[in-house]
């Protein structure tokens, strides 16, 4: 098997260190959230397996289009994604053990469920941390890889927006607050929330001039700008609804409640799909 990169053990160890730091940084709120622990034993194991499969696809997309070595072969990207999942599971297991959420007396299926549910979000954090927390001269491709221009295309950007949206939405989707807000808000307020989310996406992508916006946000015409904002919000809604489904928030709910919850989670998700998407691609100056 041929590999596109060669690194010393020390450099690899540093990369894993960055991944662990990123994993903890991006997922600590989830590791300390009761509803996520509960999801580990309430959800059907098949749904947790589906969650793992979707996370693998997300990691694959992120590593391919925005990760550290975007010029790698698909097999290398898959290997990186499996490594990130493994590190995510290890970190989740360690934190759950330190916080006495798993251990002697807890059933194996409950333990596996908790570690799997927590570990997948940690894995996304590991991936982002590995790519974004690097030193200025780490010798890897970053954004200046051979496929730099291709990564700014519509579909790659949509894929990275999905990663950003999931990273933000997954932190709130398991909480009861989303249901409470959706349940107690009048329909007109939900509509205003949806319009505000769209405006927020437009503000971040086309007005606030975030770093990287000039590279990754097409804004040649009104049509392209509008398409970008609408796509970003659509991706945010899909990511938010997916997270709500995986954490069981749609179970037994009428469709109106599902819709309202999706709009409510759409606020953090659209931030992830717009600002988060740009931040996920920003490399330190000099690279």
């Amino acid at each position, binding site marked *: *098997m*041929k*590999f596109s990169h*060669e*690194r*010393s*053990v*020390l*450099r*690899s*160890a540093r990369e*894993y260190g960055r991944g662990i730091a990123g994993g903890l940084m991006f997922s600590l709120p989830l590791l300390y959230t009761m509803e996520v622990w*509960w999801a580990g*034993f*309430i959800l*059907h*194991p*098949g749904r*947790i*397996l589906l969650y*793992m499969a979707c996370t693998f696809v997300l990691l694959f997309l992120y590593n391919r289009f925005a990760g550290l070595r975007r010029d790698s072969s698909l097999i290398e990207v898959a*290997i990186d994604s*499996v*490594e*990130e*999942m*493994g*590190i995510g*599971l*290890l970190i989740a297991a360690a934190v759950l053990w330190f916080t006495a959420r798993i251990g002697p*007396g*807890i*059933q*194996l*299926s*409950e333990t*596996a*469920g908790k*570690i*799997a549910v927590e*570990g997948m979000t940690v894995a996304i954090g590991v991936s982002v941390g590995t790519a974004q927390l690097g*030193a200025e*001269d*780490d*010798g890897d491709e970053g954004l200046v890889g051979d496929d730099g221009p291709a990564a700014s295309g519509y579909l790659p950007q949509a894929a990275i927006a999905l990663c950003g949206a999931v990273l933000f939405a997954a932190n709130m989707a398991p909480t009861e607050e989303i249901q409470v807000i959706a349940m107690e808000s009048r329909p007109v307020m939900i509509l205003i929330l949806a319009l505000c989310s769209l405006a927020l996406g437009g503000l971040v992508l086309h007005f606030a001039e975030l770093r990287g916006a000039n590279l990754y946000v097409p804004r040649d015409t009104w049509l392209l700008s509008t398409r970008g904002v609408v796509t970003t919000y659509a991706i945010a809604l899909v990511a938010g609804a997916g997270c709500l489904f995986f954490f*069981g928030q749609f*179970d*037994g709910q009428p469709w109106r409640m599902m819709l309202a919850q999706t709009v409510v989670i759409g606020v953090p998700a659209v931030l992830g799909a717009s600002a988060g998407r740009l931040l996920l691609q920003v490399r330190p100056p000099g690279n």
Partner: protein
Amino acid sequence: MSREKEEKIPAGKNALEWSVFAVSSLLVLGIIILLGVDALRWGGGPARLEIGLGEAKMEGGQLCVPLRVTNQGDTVAVNVNVDVTAPGGNGAKTASVTFDFIPRGATREGRVIFPPEQDPTKLEARISGYETAP
């Protein structure tokens, strides 16, 4: 860092990277197998709760009675209320304990407290209600 770049680096992945990949693969595979087996065993039936009363002890001038609830069913039981009653006609005494969750196959332990004069052999425990997870 520049010194590091001049080092002779082996081609392809190094030993550390292969080790991390091997351990990660085992972990991911292990979790998939565990969850897969669990999914196949999932019956979809209701929770089935069994109570066991332990040996009562005097603690701090009160009679403490430990109890264990095991869920032998297929779904999680939520907010499980357990009442332990000491029958005595009009003077029946009841102590209660609530468990947030009892997952499938799991056992949770608690304690109920009675006045010191209570005869521990005459206690009766029952589940007075619980929610089912959606």
